[in-house]
């Protein structure tokens, strides 16, 4: 069953040559990150060259779809009219497990805004917005304790890979 949390009028992503593969994977409910084939560095959003080793070779690396909240905001103003019935909603930056420090913007759903906290564990859930468009949202992890490296003050885009830490 296709669950829906956001209205049809949400902005449609614009896709280019570098990002197309990410959205194609998303359409098949695969959460991926672009990983440099030469040095293993990840980058998000996708780009044409590795900022670390400058290799242009990369691959889409499947992620487990788990992570932790790096930061968030509770949005209480409807910036498009059809969101008025969906207020408040929560926008998060989520640090992706096995993402090599990569973070992405998403939403946290199925939670009281009062209960959101930085570092809390989250799981991906997919919302099919159209025939070729699926958008990854997140909900609180089932049965997982909150708190993770994301809540520390030393997180870094080039920090240690979280691989296995939350497996």
């Amino acid at each position: 069953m296709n669950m829906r949390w956001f209205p049809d009028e949400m902005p449609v992503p614009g896709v280019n040559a570098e990002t197309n593969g990410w959205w194609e994977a998303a359409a098949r409910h695969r959460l991926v990150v672009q990983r440099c084939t030469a040095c293993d560095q990840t980058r998000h959003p996708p780009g044409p060259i590795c900022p670390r080793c400058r290799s242009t070779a990369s691959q889409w690396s499947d992620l487990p779809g788990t992570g932790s909240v790096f930061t968030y905001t509770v949005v209480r103003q409807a910036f498009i009219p059809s969101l008025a019935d969906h207020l408040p909603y929560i926008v998060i930056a989520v640090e992706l497990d096995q993402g090599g420090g990569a973070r992405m913007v998403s939403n946290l759903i199925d939670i009281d805004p009062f209960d959101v906290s930085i570092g809390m564990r989250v799981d991906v859930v997919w919302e099919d917005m159209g025939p070729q468009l699926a958008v990854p949202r997140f909900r609180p992890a089932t049965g997982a304790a909150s708190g993770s490296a994301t809540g520390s003050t030393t997180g870094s885009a080039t920090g240690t890979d979280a691989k296995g830490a939350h497996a």
Partner: protein
Amino acid sequence: MSKRAAGSTACLVGIGETRYAKWGGITDTSEYQLAVDAIVAAVADAGLSMDDVDGLASFADDRNEATFAAADLGLPELRYASMSWLPGGGGSCAAVANAAMAVETGACEVVVVYRSLCQGQFHRFGQGPGGRPPRGPSQGPARVPGIRKARTLLDAHLAFTMPFGMFSPPIAYAMVLQRHMHRFGTTPEQMGQVAVTTRAHAARNPRAVMGSRPMTMDDYLQSRFVSEPFRLFDCCLETDGACAVVVTTHERALDLRQVPVALLGSAQGTPRGFGHGQYANVGMPDDDYTSAGARTVADRLWARTGLGPQDIDVAEIYDHFTGLVLLSLEDFGFCGRGEGGPFALSGALNWPDGAMPINTHGGSLSEAYIHGLNHVVEGVRQIRGDSTCQVEGAETCLVTSAAGVPTSALVLGRR
């Protein structure tokens, strides 16, 4: 003074402003007409003729192209035209710096830097497709969800924010301040102090759109949330208006009407991997994410001018959001990392008695939102001694551009 010699030699010799009005308040004059009016006013203020102008500079995807303006203003010859790549309000100081570089290299002699912004006539700047519609015929039909081709690189990057309802700057930067609060204990009252302080400064400024609307801390705390932790009064105004600044060489400046205001130095750019800033990049290192993104700019600015934060008499800090003012104060070294909130709440920012009075015109929070070029105008006033919140004997003024995007900064002073 050998370090100073490595800085700029250009001067700011003229300022011009149109009236400032709330969003949609100017309907009888086009945004382009306002740009032209501001340019004319600035050239007159300098004691120059339009026939002396041979360069134009702007920033932030200016709709009012210099090539058309040069023809319409009847410039004898256009020798220099530039628009900064730094997005939005990040380029206000860079536009002045680029003008200075042009006159210092001899590419041209007199550049007018201008910015006109009538959000009532167009979409609100920096806002996605959900923006408040312009006044006029309604927009096209609703889109069918699917995939479309990106128009620009930024469009492709915002595909990773917009579908999640991160439509506009207040949402993106609320997330930055949430993280800053988490790391450093920053409080709503500390952010609110920026709003209250700059509103008090605006009360003395007849140009300020909010000059007759006093604000207490209670008023601030009772304003509605837009995107937590940002309340309405954490967000800058939406206004209509234009302003301009004339830049020329030191030699030329000596013969003009106004006491020349020296550009003591400038810097622009980003740290590694900053990209478009936190608006489109949540993957940067935490120390950058919870900053204004201006630390490298600040370091270079202080090195080039031979000055430091302790040498600055007054600062005009870009204020699209209260919280980002705190981060700019940290980046430029007025206080330690994470100490912007307590610094603000201590009264340090208040004119006339604070240690570092800021935004003596009221800033974007209370004067007008002209993308920070009005902060440059106010900086010129301070060095001339003409501000409505004049810092007595001010000899140095820091002006900064938008935090959270690739940014720029200037030090104005006397030479």
